[in-house]
């Protein structure tokens, strides 16, 4: 008999769900007609999305064509060729620049190893993952498509679903973990300025020491759950060193 009432309870649970709030949003991937809802859920700060090639604040390209990103790429999806700069009209501040830069998004796994390998922070990842191209040529992003525009914001291609404000967060992952995710470097800026943004502030709240100090100061860690979770993660990884 107890089993039977359990069944009825189960049916009651599913029936009650009919009248509950939906957890999914009304997402149409940017295909909504006028007047239709099209919500995107907020993404986390460090999401690995489609790449951008950054430029210095004076508009020079950061990429020096060293091919380290191509070398480290586990999916072998990056193709880079460097060339010497024209001394009179240089593309990048150094000797060389990347004159071919291609990423094949049919192969890319968004591991961000290229971002970690890059010596000049030329390549970072934006938070965009909603880009559904319809042919293989579109899948291979070229240097022109990857390079940020004159305002420092990523180029928006026709098949990409960019929303208001999404094009500003292009280096979250790099600023959170650089270098090599070592928490002792927290707060130390090791990256150069970007066109349109200047030198971006580091992401704080990662190190165990910082969390300990906060607890000692009597701060409520629960006030910001993200900080607490990060501190826990860093405690376990930091203990190994």
């Amino acid at each position, binding site marked *: 008999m107890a*089993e039977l009432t*359990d*069944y009825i309870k*189960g*049916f009651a*649970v*599913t*029936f009650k*769900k*009919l009248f*509950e*709030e*939906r*957890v*999914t*949003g*009304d997402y*149409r991937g940017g*295909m909504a007609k006028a007047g239709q809802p099209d919500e995107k859920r907020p993404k986390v700060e460090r999401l690995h999305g489609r790449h951008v090639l950054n430029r210095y604040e004076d508009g020079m390209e950061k990429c020096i064509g060293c091919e380290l990103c191509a070398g480290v790429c586990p999916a072998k999806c990056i193709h880079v060729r460097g060339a010497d700069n024209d001394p009179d009209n240089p593309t990048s501040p150094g000797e060389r620049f990347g004159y071919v830069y291609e990423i094949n998004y049919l192969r890319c796994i968004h591991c961000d190893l290229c971002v970690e390998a890059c010596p000049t922070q030329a390549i970072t990842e934006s938070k965009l993952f909603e880009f559904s191209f319809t042919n293989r040529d579109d899948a291979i992003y070229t240097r022109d498509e990857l390079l940020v525009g004159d305002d420092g914001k990523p180029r928006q291609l026709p098949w990409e679903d960019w929303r208001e404000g999404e094009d500003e967060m292009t280096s979250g992952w790099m600023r959170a973990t650089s270098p090599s995710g070592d928490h002792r470097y927290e707060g130390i800026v090791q990256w150069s300025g970007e066109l349109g943004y200047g030198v971006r502030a580091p992401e704080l709240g990662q190190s165990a020491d910082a969390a300990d100090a906060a607890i000692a100061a009597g701060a409520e860690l629960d006030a910001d759950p993200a900080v607490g979770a990060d501190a826990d993660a860093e405690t376990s990884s930091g203990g190994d060193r």
Partner: protein
Amino acid sequence: MIGATDPLFADPFGLPEVGVVLLKVFVAFVFLLVAVMFNIWFLRKVISDMQNRIGPNLAGPWGILVTLADGIKLFFKEDLIPEKSHRFVFKLAPYLSLIPAFLVFAIVPIGGDFNRTDGPGIISIFGHETLLQVADPPVGILFFLAMSSLAIYGVMLAGWGSGSKYPLLGSVRASAQMVSYEAALGLSIASVVLVSGTLSMHDMVLTQAGPGFNSFVPNWNIIVTGFIPFFIFLVAGTAELNHPPFDLVEAEQELVGGFHTEYSSIRFALFYLAEFMNQITMGAIIVTLFLGGPAGPALFVPKGWWVGVFWFFFKLMLFLFGFVWLRATLPRLRYDQLMDLGWKLLIPVSLAWFLVLAGIQIGRDRGWSSVEVGAFALGFGVVCMLCGALLMMALSSARAQRLTDLEQASADSGQASADLGQKRADLGETPTKGVLRG
């Protein structure tokens, strides 16, 4: 009995009658296709509501055209036929499961005013009197049993003809399941036939129409047969449909896709069409057998054939919702639980209930008083319960004995307790609760 045959055929049969029949066939065909489209959309919407999702919302208003879009997509997909398949059987199988699904609906009365006294349920199309059902064969409900048996061949041959192991496993399961549950299904139908005294679907609705006990409780078979056959038919019918929680046939986690693993493109779509069409026809059969079909309380002031249509679809929708509710709630049964439920619970109970009903019927025929009939039924019930209790006691004591033997043996040989746990599990002593284990 009135209207034992379709009044359309009472007159000399000519071209206009053929026209009426063709019209009915066409309407039923189009209706079924549209209803399946709606049914799949309804399933997806309700199940996403039950999972706190939004569900399909892009194709058409509220995503109502999503099935159409899926169908068009499947049409243009590549049609693969495996190298090792038996090509003829492989191509035949989808139609073997689709055509019975279509044909069953032909015998279901879907409308007509059953509250009027002169020719209840009869409507007039172009001046020709007929029933609002494609055909009313004298064998009626037996046709349904025949068709649902035939549909097993579709599943069986699809699995066998694919020349692949998972479809074969799925179809072996399917045929075992469908054959087992057909017995319980048939026995609960027998109860209905016994009470109605007819096999014709139209006459079954006629016997259920009109006021019943105290002119308030409807005269429906669900009440007249005492609820048990209805619940058995519901469970067995769900199993016959391979619908969750009895969808072992296409258990994705174990069998990839079951019998239709190797199917793609439009052949795959035909299987899905058949599956969801079977839900509608099974719901329609339940409504007709137990809930009076198009016969319902005369609540509406304007009378007409559409009152019957309204009641029929209202009742059908309840069952379609019920099927979705089952799918959203219950986890899949294990194979042994499925067989236990079918053979050890449903078949004995439906058989015993059929005997009780038969006894009562004989008592009525011989003019026994209601007290005598009641005493007989009570006595029979007590005997049945005693027998059942004895059987359960014997089963549980045998199981306990086996367990103590095992414990003794494992203690003697010093085996690990994990081994014992495994044997306990083999004996069905699993920590998880079984579903209605007999």
